[in-house]
């Protein structure tokens, strides 16, 4: 009972002290928000188009005729490269650009590419080199999409050509094949001519054959049209939130702000006990070490809750006033705040550990900021890109908090995510609290 009472007394003391330093509180709240905005903006551009070099060893002409169709291959490549920025370079320039990271991949169009393309019988190849690193898999996927789009364009033309040939064989007309024009009678006209010759018994057999052949070709024509686009994607653009007001951004802003705030506050108020030379008075049995630890974690949690509430209300107000699609899920706010409580407490425990280790206010705050950034950035790295970063991030609260907030705010059925993440944060609170408790004697040692 005394333990809790003492913790409450010390928390109240810290709140009174903070109230008397409003500038510190404002800075502590605004600085992380500013960082959250900047990270959010950068993260918003994370899906922007990476730069790719294209090396043309075949000296592709301005226009190339393939299967009777004339293409502007370079324009076609530029046109289908929707998700990447194309820069045409020499081989040496591209190699240098890849080494320096100016481009994340190099497409090489080899000698003989156009000849293979024109032959229709050989599939031409393009080479693709990418640098090692986090986004190489994403770039490879985008390259596959680029080649797919290019193939689709050519495939459409080939199929259109093939369908044209079938139509001419069936209906007759003038066809161009390998650059020469040919007049074709066509099955239907040939059938009509033969059908008119009633005296020839062999003609009737040929007419039946022509009917069969015409039916088969018609079926082939229909199949070819279907194969050209077996599945169509209907794309529609709906009105929705921009990135800055997205669920992800709200979750990031909340997680990042609370991370920096709780870490810095936990560290600073813990170290201040030593700065003010009071830790030694408290440490002589007046207050238990658990009470002191609990008081600092409680303060970090209370301030995290207050700032988290302000952020959620601010987002909500902007969304409501702006009439943004989707609105703010007000009924989910209590659930989010439950997550903020666990999140702020777990981070407060880490902050308290930093404060005890640093033993001096300014060093503690600096240490907290130095620790906060890697924790946050580790949590921002997608697990599928760098799995080790994900494992390391798991022992810190950031990624768990971010997933909790995002799910609590916008998932239709959040419990599958929110439950495990809440348990993670609770476990991390116990873990980091225990480590911070072990470091507490440093506060009273000279």
């Amino acid at each position, binding site marked *: 009972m005394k333990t809790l009472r003492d913790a409450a*007394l010390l928390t109240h*003391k810290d709140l009174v002290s903070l109230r008397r330093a409003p500038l510190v509180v404002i800075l502590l709240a605004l600085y992380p928000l500013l960082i959250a905005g900047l990270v959010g903006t950068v993260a918003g551009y994370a899906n922007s188009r990476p730069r790719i070099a294209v090396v043309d060893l075949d000296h592709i002409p301005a226009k190339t005729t393939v299967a009777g169709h004339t293409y502007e291959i370079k324009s076609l490549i530029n046109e289908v490269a929707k998700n990447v920025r194309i820069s045409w370079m020499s081989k040496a320039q591209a190699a240098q650009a890849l080494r320096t990271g100016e481009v994340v991949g190099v497409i090489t169009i080899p000698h003989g590419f156009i000849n293979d393309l024109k032959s229709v019988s050989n599939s031409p190849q393009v080479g693709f080199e990418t640098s090692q690193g986090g986004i190489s898999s994403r770039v490879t996927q985008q390259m596959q999409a680029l080649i797919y789009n290019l193939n689709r364009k050519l495939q459409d033309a080939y199929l259109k050509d093939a369908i044209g040939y079938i139509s001419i064989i069936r209906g007759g007309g003038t066809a161009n094949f390998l650059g020469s024009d040919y007049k074709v009678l066509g099955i239907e006209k040939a059938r009509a001519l033969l059908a008119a010759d009633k005296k020839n018994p062999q003609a009737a057999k040929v007419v039946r054959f022509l009917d069969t052949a015409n039916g088969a070709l018609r079926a082939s024509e229909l199949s070819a049209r279907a194969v050209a686009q077996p599945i169509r994607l209907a794309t529609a653009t709906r009105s929705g939130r921009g990135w800055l007001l997205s669920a992800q951004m709200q979750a990031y802003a909340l997680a990042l702000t609370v991370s920096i705030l709780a870490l810095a506050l936990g560290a600073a108020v813990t170290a201040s006990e030593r700065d003010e*030379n009071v830790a030694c*008075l408290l440490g002589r049995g007046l207050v238990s070490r658990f009470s002191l630890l609990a008081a600092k974690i409680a303060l970090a949690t209370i301030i995290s809750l207050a700032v988290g509430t302000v952020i959620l209300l601010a987002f909500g107000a902007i969304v409501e006033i702006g009439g943004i699609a989707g609105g703010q899920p007000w009924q989910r706010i209590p659930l989010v705040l439950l997550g903020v409580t666990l999140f702020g407490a777990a981070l407060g425990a880490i902050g308290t550990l930093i404060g005890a280790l640093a033993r001096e206010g300014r060093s503690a705050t600096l240490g907290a900021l130095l620790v906060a950034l890697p924790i946050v950035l580790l949590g921002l790295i997608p697990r599928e890109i760098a799995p080790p970063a994900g494992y390391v991030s798991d022992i810190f609260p950031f990624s768990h908090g971010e997933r909790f907030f995002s799910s609590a705010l916008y998932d239709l059925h959040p419990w599958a995510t929110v439950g495990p993440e809440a348990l993670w944060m609770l476990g991390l609170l116990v873990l980091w609290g225990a480590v911070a408790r072990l470091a507490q004697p440093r506060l*009273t040692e000279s």
Partner: protein
Amino acid sequence: MAETLLTAHAVSRRFGRVIALESIDLELRSGEAVALVGPNGAGKSTLMSILAGALKASEGQIAVTGSAKVGWLPQRPAHYGRLSAGENLVLFARLEQMDEPEREAARMLERFSLPSDRLSAYLSIGNRQRLSLAIALLGNPNVLLLDEPTASLDPKQRALLWGEAQHHIAAGGAVLFSSQNPEEVERHATRVVALDSGHLVFGGSPEEYTVWEREP
């Protein structure tokens, strides 16, 4: 015979490889004022911290007799700068689980002539030292540990502080104070204990100490 209030037996303290105190024995009895003397780094503050319970001894025991309580004035003022003197006293009185913390705080403010509502960070060094002493006296301790209490005080403030110490001794308490001031030791101490490099090198009356100190 005066009652023994606090005993240190074979107390040692190491910080890593550095030996700060080596097997110190000390007794504090009611009605006495013991001066703890020695050069800088002798281990005076470390011993005070161990006796106060703020620091653990690496070896040896500290025994506080019966219901005796220990109050401690550290070398550097110890209180919260963003609380007023009154708020500091109320907080520490509550942590001491005193029955009427507000009343006790008001009594201390009056006794030490401290301003009630001014943030203690803005108090003069003398007032801050007096506030720390007032905090040390909360809970009516029998033993008062004063670590260089007058180092930064003017003569008037010193007189006030020693007046409080004498009052405490007269009420049956004991005072252990560290000092670098020979005149202060001679005037206020009933017994002197000298430390050097963590070792107890002298124990006796102020007169004996004066003789011992003059010896080559």
